[in-house]
């Protein structure tokens, strides 16, 4: 069936990502652009793709480089492609790669492109540190000054507090609430216990460890030479704690509400560096070029809630729309990938999907349904693998398609929550 209405059917041909590494560790010397290039260069190589066949490259990133804000264009200037490959960058918080993917899919469905690369990259090590407002004003004024004396006078206005730099915080501009505080609030609102959060985090680590050991996860990873000496390849994610135990997790102190809180460093996703990309094609072009697609995009949806309410709960509204557009029910789905920003958020999302209240808010007569844990995040998720904001969506889609193919299932669903109270869901199907 066509992906959208009467449009072309969009095939997911392959996906590749860099290893994901906790910020400030193995990948700290790579910029987001480097990480994006590493993933895309390998995607082109591994799929034996002729770079000249690519019509479009869309990339997502959340904290863009100040000097090269259009990361997609930098990535598309890889020597694997002709310089005529047009590219643009999108931003939808943690669903940025998903936005890149659905934009590319739209272009294919419309017939504007036949082959597209979509993905995202993030370096949360190399974030831009800004000067204070006072310092910025002085620097701008000084650059316009004509004489040295004028310049000195301007610099003399600087006060000690002006020297304190500003680092971007992961907080909502509208509410001032940080991501962690929002998760903490959701845990309380939805009654998600500390134990269930810790057990879910443990499950994530153990599933990821198993996926790494049997090669399911590592098959999606391009080995990256380890700077600065390049004496080894980084081929696995370093956030996965294969030896973690429930007791260890339970012993951690809550971070955002030290007294009554339940969200800890152990049941939240870590700041991560990484890049990921997928290769999308129109079905006809995939066939013409001799590719056997992993899966097809059947539908997708975006939704939003008031960020002051439950910041990360919008997947609960996006999923039923995507399912309805696909003409499917939750029980039809064989594999589910839910982005794990916080254990409290995943468990809130799952609870919401099963709740009558949220069904009513979505305009449904009955809840979407119960999520079967046998089908959910079977190779771990962002809690263990890590969460480079701009890249996660492409990782999730790749894993979903590969696992669906491995299981011989028919339909897969992914959901991603994003800052600003936004949520995304996508349904994929196998041929």
């Amino acid at each position, binding site marked *: 069936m066509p992906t959208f209405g009467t449009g072309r059917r969009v095939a997911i041909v392959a996906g590749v990502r860099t290893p994901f590494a906790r910020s400030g560790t193995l990948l700290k010397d790579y910029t987001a652009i*480097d990480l994006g*290039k*590493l993933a895309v*260069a*390998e995607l*082109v*190589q*591994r*799929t*034996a*793709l*002729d770079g000249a066949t690519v019509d479009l490259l869309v990339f997502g990133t959340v904290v863009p480089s100040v000097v090269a804000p259009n990361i997609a264009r930098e990535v598309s200037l*890889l*020597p*694997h492609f002709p310089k005529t490959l047009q590219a643009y960058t999108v931003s939808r918080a943690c669903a940025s790669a998903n936005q890149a993917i659905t934009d590319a899919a739209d272009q294919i469905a419309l017939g504007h492109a036949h082959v597209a690369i979509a993905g995202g990259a993030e370096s949360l090590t190399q974030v831009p540190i800004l000067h204070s407002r006072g310092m910025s004003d002085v620097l701008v004024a000084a650059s316009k000054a004509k004489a040295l004396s004028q310049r000195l006078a301007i610099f003399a206005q600087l006060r000690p507090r002006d020297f304190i730099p500003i680092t971007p915080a992961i907080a909502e501009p509208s509410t001032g609430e940080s991501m962690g505080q929002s998760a903490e609030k959701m845990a309380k609102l939805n009654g998600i216990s500390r134990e269930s959060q810790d057990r879910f985090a443990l499950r994530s680590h153990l599933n990821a460890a198993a996926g790494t050991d049997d090669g399911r996860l590592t098959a999606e990873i*391009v*080995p990256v*030479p*380890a700077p600065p000496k*390049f*004496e*080894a*390849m980084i*081929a696995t994610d370093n956030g996965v704690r294969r030896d973690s135990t429930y007791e260890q997790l339970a012993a951690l102190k809550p971070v955002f509400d030290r007294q009554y809180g339940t969200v800890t460093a152990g049941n939240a996703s870590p700041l991560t560096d990484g890049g990921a990309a997928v290769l999308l094609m129109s079905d006809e072009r995939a066939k013409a070029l001799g590719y056997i697609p992993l899966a097809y995009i059947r539908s997708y949806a975006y939704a939003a809630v008031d960020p002051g309410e439950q910041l990360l709960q919008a997947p609960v509204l996006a999923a039923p729309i995507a399912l309805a557009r696909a003409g499917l029910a939750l029980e039809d789905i064989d594999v589910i990938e839910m982005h794990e920003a916080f254990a409290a958020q995943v468990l809130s999302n799952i609870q919401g999907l099963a709740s009558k209240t949220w069904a009513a808010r979505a305009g449904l007569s009955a809840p979407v349904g119960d999520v079967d844990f046998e089908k959910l995040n079977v190779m771990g998720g962002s809690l263990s693998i890590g969460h480079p904001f701009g890249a996660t969506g492409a990782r999730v889609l790749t894993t979903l398609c590969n696992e669906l193919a491995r299981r011989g299932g028919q339909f897969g669903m992914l959901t991603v929550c994003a800052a600003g109270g936004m949520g995304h869901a996508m349904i994929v199907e196998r041929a």
Partner: protein
Amino acid sequence: MTTETLGVVLMEDAATGLRLSVHDGVATVCYDQPDSPVNTLNTRVGPVFEQMFTRIEQDASIVGAMLVSGKPDTWIAGADIDELRRVTTPLDGETLSRGGQLLLNRLAAMPKPLVAAIHGAALGGGLEIALACRYRIATDHPKTVLALPEVQLGLLPGAGGTQRLPRTVGLPAALDMILTGKTIRAKKAWQMGLVHELVHPSILRDVVARRVRALARGDAMPLLARKRRASEVLLEDNALGRTVVFRQARATVLKKTRGHYPAPLAAIDAIEAGYRHGEDAGLREEAKRFGELAVSDVCRELVSIFFATTALKKDSGLPDGVTAEAVRVRKIGVLGAGFMGAGIATVAVQAGTIVRLKDSSLDRVVAGWRAVREVLRERVNRRQLTRAQMDDTLSLVGGTIDYSGFANAELVIEAVFEDLAVKHAVLREVQAVAPHAIFASNTSTIPIRDIAAAAVHADQVVGMHFFSPVHKMPLLEVIVTPETSAQTTATVVAYGRQLGKTVIVVRDGPGFYVNRILAPYINESGKLLDDGASIDAIDEALVSFGFPVGPLTLLDEVGLDIAGKSGPIMAAAFGERMRPSVTLQRVIESGRLGRKAKRGFYRYSEQGKREDVDKGVYALTPASGSRIAVAAEEIQRRTVLPMLNEAVRCLEDGIVRSPRDGDIGAVFGIGFPPFRGGPFRFIDALGAAAVVKQLEELEKRYPGRYEPAAMLRAKATAGERFHP
């Protein structure tokens, strides 16, 4: 660059491609040599230039002129070397040089300003013309390079270059350029004061026209960028300092050339004469020495190599009458990320090819990737590459431990372990995942037909024998079997050239060509050790013959394990004359693998720096510890003559297609002394009869090792040469 001319054409000479036009009082002399991709200088253009300059001088409406090239990306690439080959006496050569000098003197003395508008290569005589112009403006473009490369052909700049260059850029910089022939890029040329200004190509002629007018008005011009350090001033501006500089230059040249190359010394003499006795004396010395050099053996051989490599650049590698279209190679697979595999990947990515680099473990892959990076880093350090270009180039290397990504490779080059079973295994695997790809083996010892025996598509199997280190060695030996298709050959030859290599196509057979002629040379070196000669005496004798390193040093550098592998194969194929010496075998068995093991014929420090001869080796020789003195000439005869003899056998067996290929293979693959032209040209110089006589004499003393090749005897009897 546009070639159309603004204004009115005053003179045009179709035969030379010179055209004089004038626009708004500024004349343009445009050179666009017909039927040639580049502009060269020959005796026919001189008189036409002369007429045009006279016209410029006499025409009152013209205030000055510019000299431009009508070719898109090259200016004037030097003298016509064909014309040079017709010089038969020193006097002819001197006259040729005087003619050039007079023309440029006239040009330099023109009362109206002449400005060189340089876009593209200004080489040799081209740069000498530019130096005679009153002002030089070059484009800031990668194609714009300047050099006086005459010494590379055994000559010196013969049109005043030895006088004008030092006066323009200073003595040390001029010596550096003239004695090495090195290429100077536009930016550097500006920094050193070789050109006055750098501009974008699209405004070159406009800016030059403005400068011509300004010069004609007598306006002050921007000074040359050159800034001189105090030490330079001290050495250059007084006779005593210059004496020191010249003495040092001569010593350096002698150390490097060991007296085999007269041109750099002659150039120093000419430069010095100019400083001591004035420009006229310098020019006379320059012309005299040019005449001598032009008819010298060294110049003749170097020019022959130049012509052979030029011809090889146009050679499809296919037999006469056979044509095939080369497939464009955009992606290659490289099997084995070791020293050779990484080296091949390095040259491939620099040519813009996507490389899939496979080995058995990620550790090996990353080591190969690192080796590629190190070569690129070195180029960044030398400012030949920007950081961004390095990252881009490096991104073309994709490491893998499986065959993913091989499907669309047009060519797969294997550099795996030298073992037939391993080669067969990878060949089968490659032809399964990439059935259309050409499979090239970089083996140095295994016959290609033996490898191809396991192929499903034997017509796609070929040898590509690179030399180590790949990014430095200029030769690529392409080995074809009777089954190799014409398209396969044409593709790898064209691709080899894209990698910047000089490519010779040879027929399959043990050792192919280069290693086959190397084998008796190495073996006889070993037998000299057996007989009691000392390590340093052998190496020294052959370095003084003109090889870049001696045979035992070469073994240490290449690795004795690698040499040890080929020994038995060559002996099995060719018998007595290739039987490895006792010493070589014992040295290999004793675990002395050469530099990489820090233990070989020489000793190496912990840091890998070579120290002296390891006398411990002598205990392994049949002659034991006692050493006898062997004359250098005897060492040279015993090692070089069998190499020459083997080269003739290769021609006889059809391994090499021509004496030309045999010469180029030896010079670029082994470092056979270029001034001797290669084995075949060297035989021609000695005379086949003389070579046969010496071989026979050696054959009497060492039966079975020096029997002259039948073709060599035939040439001797008929009194023929290999080269016409």
